[in-house]
């Protein structure tokens, strides 16, 4: 069944019951956190770096129109072309048109979250093109016909056994009988298979980690080197990026790169950080003859206008999901769309509509760990809470929550009634708790007692005890 943010609940439940997935998730959990913790060590004042990152992104967004125009003229000056897409459909149309123009048959792709957002692969495949994902993780899930479950480690949910099986099916027609293979062997095999694809691709599609307005450059960050083979070898390079990705200068990009690697994988610098500016020059020995940059709005200008602007600071590092205990319990697919974890729980409702993503803003304990590691200091819990408030205002909040709140509010505004009811409730719960001191099954609180005992109240309420103490003390 196709994943959807509307089915968050059932997808999360399925994920919790999937032992292979749970095995993969528990392996990933501590790894990412440790790597970041070690990675930020070499900068004495990492907090100051985060603050600087936040300011750079805020400043860039606060003059976005100027930066976009500057970027456009710089790309043109370098011999590239800029295309503007208001939504995903326009972006697909533009890219498909360019591929046709290049008379393309094979397209290599370097991992791009915007590519996922506009669902470019199915569109190109439907038009008869052979689309090959070249990031190893993306390649694995392309073989598995699954969407990514993490924005920087798309196949984080796959175990080595599953990958061995996929490669057996797709590279050996099952001849290996799904034998578990060593990691170097798997990586080498993918390298060989994909090398041929790189060399025969007509068009290479990449995303962009940043866009630099002053030079018209796109910034590509990888560890594998696949982005560089993708933009260097084919006849045409198409980069697709959200309009939010612009930063004014190379020095701004530098600060953000220091944050990105450390936050994502704990690396001070990923293996390959590339600034691509336009197509092959007249005297260049290699590179694509054409360079096209597709700039996508798809709701970003709306976010810029509203109370969620801070979300546009996101540099897609994945730290928030790496540190999210909900994500690490259910994995990325449960969120039902391209962007998982805390950033996805904010972004998906903004892209897809609050009424279609009821659970996402709510499935969070607001524990705040995500915001404490976000390299650009996005207050993710506050944004989630704002989404909840918007749901409440627009009557999207489920009726049980509404009634519960209404009842609680009615009591909490009337201290006498409150004291009476909590006193009664306390007595009732103590009665239910009996000699055990706790309750194993509680009507209306089945969610709790399905997996936890419920502690019975300890003696009469505080207020009563306090009053008693006061009267005992009075004579003094």
């Amino acid at each position, binding site marked *: 069944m196709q994943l959807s943010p509307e089915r968050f609940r059932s997808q999360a439940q399925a994920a919790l019951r999937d032992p292979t997935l749970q095995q993969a998730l528990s392996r990933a959990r501590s790894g990412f956190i440790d790597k970041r913790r070690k990675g930020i060590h070499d900068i004495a004042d990492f907090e100051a770096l985060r603050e600087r990152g936040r300011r750079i992104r805020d400043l860039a967004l606060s003059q976005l129109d*100027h930066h976009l125009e500057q970027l456009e003229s710089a790309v043109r000056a370098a011999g590239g072309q800029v295309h503007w897409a208001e939504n995903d459909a326009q972006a697909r149309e533009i890219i498909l048109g360019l591929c046709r123009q290049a008379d393309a048959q094979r397209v290599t792709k370097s991992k791009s979250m915007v590519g996922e957002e506009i669902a470019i692969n199915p569109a190109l495949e439907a038009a008869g093109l052979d689309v090959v994902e070249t990031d*190893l993780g993306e390649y694995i899930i392309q073989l598995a016909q699954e969407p990514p479950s993490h924005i920087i480690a798309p196949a984080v949910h796959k175990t*080595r056994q599953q990958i061995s099986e996929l490669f057996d099916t797709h590279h050996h027609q099952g001849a290996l009988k799904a034998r578990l293979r060593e990691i170097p062997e798997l990586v080498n095999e993918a390298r060989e298979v994909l090398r041929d694809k790189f060399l025969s691709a007509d068009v290479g599609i990449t995303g962009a980690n940043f866009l630099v307005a002053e030079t018209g450059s796109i910034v590509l960050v990888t560890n594998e080197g696949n982005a560089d083979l993708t933009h260097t070898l084919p006849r045409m390079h198409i980069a697709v990026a959200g309009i939010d990705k612009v930063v004014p200068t190379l020095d701004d990009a530098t600060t953000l*790169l220091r944050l990105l690697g450390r936050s994502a994988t704990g690396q001070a610098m990923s293996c390959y950080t590339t600034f691509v500016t336009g197509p092959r020059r007249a005297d260049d020995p290699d590179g694509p003859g054409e360079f096209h940059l597709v700039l996508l*709005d798809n709701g970003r200008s709306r976010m810029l206008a509203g109370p969620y602007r801070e979300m546009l600071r996101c540099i897609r590092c994945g730290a928030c999901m790496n540190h999210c205990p909900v994500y690490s319990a259910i994995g990325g697919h449960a969120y039902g769309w391209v962007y998982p974890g805390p950033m996805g729980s904010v972004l998906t409702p903004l892209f897809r509509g609050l009424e279609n993503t009821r659970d996402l803003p709510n499935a969070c304990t607001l524990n705040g760990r995500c915001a404490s590691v976000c390299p650009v200091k996005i207050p993710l819990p506050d944004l989630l809470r704002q989404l909840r408030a918007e749901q409440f205002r627009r009557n999207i909040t489920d009726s049980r929550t509404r009634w519960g709140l209404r009842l609680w509010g009615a009591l909490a505004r009337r201290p006498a009634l409150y004291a009476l009811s909590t006193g009664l409730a306390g007595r009732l719960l103590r009665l239910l708790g009996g000699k055990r001191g706790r309750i194993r099954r509680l009507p209306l609180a089945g969610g709790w007692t399905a997996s936890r005992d419920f502690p019975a109240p300890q003696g009469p309420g505080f207020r009563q005890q306090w009053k008693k103490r006061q009267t005992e003390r009075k004579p003094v």
Partner: protein
Amino acid sequence: MSSARDNILRRVAAALDGRNGNRGTGSPSGGHDHPSDASPPRPQWEGALLDRFLDRLQAASASWTGVDTLDAVPTTVVDYLADNGLAPRLRVAPHRLLQNLSWPDQLEITTGTDPQGLDVALSVADAAMAETGTLVLCSGPESPTTLDFLADHHLVVLRREHILPYMEDVWASLRRRPDFPPRSLNYITGPSRTADVEQTMQLGAHGPRSLHVLLIP
């Protein structure tokens, strides 16, 4: 009908100037008013630039050899290939530094960007940065990007004086060149790697499996 470009830019402008808007005050042309512009938070180290560079280079799983003069590069390469059990075959970038070297006969030298026979490539770095042990290579007539990514093993000649402390210094230096920015400006930090199978680091994903620096005076 107005174009997508105009619609997007109009919406962006309206968002920034509208009731809830807040348009930044820094100059739109890239000048920006960071209060702490003087010293961005970045790694600090004690000791020599070169030591820091080599330390970070090795931390990134790359290796290096010091070469006394440019002329000694060919013998160093021959030794490196022999030591690592590699066939005596080398693809040399058309870089002016490498043009007048005399290669020994037993070494098969090729040029161009043909992927066939691209086992070991030799190119020249435009700069390096000590901050992260990173090599900087700019595409151009003397420096085909293809070599740096398709070769199984990548050898890079680096002039000691081209090692700079930070990325900001690299920008300042490269900006002075007339052909800046090049089509592809590559910051390379160690050999290619992936952790996509069970978060276990494996070298040699799509790019070179090894990266070796020949450090010349």
